[in-house]
């Protein structure tokens, strides 16, 4: 693997980590909002 290719994959790989955290946050938030909409927050 060339140095350029190695840099490319490491940048992409490390950039994936915050992406995963953000996707996880949005996914959990969406699921939580849906759950809340079934009960106490239904009349907002």
């Amino acid at each position: 693997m060339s140095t350029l290719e190695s840099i490319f994959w490491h940048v992409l790989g490390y950039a994936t980590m915050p992406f995963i955290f953000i996707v996880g946050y949005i996914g959990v938030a969406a699921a939580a909002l849906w759950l809340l909409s079934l009960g106490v927050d239904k009349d907002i």
Partner: protein
Amino acid sequence: MTFWSRLSRPSKASAGVLLGLGFVGGILFWGAFNTGMEATNTEAFCSSCHAPIVAEIRETIHYSNRSGVRAICSDCHVPHAWTDKLVRKVQASKELVAFALGTINTPEKFRARRGHLAHREWQRMKNNDSQECRNCHNFDFMDFSEQGRRSITQHSTALASGDKTCVDCHKGVAHRLPNMSGVEGWQ
């Protein structure tokens, strides 16, 4: 009501309920993510593309030995540290393209490419000082009295000083070797 307006307005639920939802949801997401990632570390998953190579390990000591300890593909080919593993998994997305293109989908194509694949893997292991070997084989606990004369000589000099790393000598320990012409140190 839109997702954003729901997200930006205070909930009627108690702080404890909201924190609990976030806590449980976070655990579920993280568990599902890691379970999915670990599923790509199984031998069955690797075999779906690399069946000929996976079969070769059955003839080696890394598959069957007196102590019953064995290595699977990911033990040697995927870093164990989480961040390094994720980088390798992202890099492996390129291999999905190769799968779609059928780069090694016949024995002939595989044979033609195995030298290239082996060289890439040897270089990766050389760059990380054979980290995946060292996950199990710890130099500090090697008993030289149990090793052969040639092993003692090499391990106590080149390996101990860091001039060489495991994969410099131990090629083909779990697979058949490709065409070795041009490989350093190979006669």
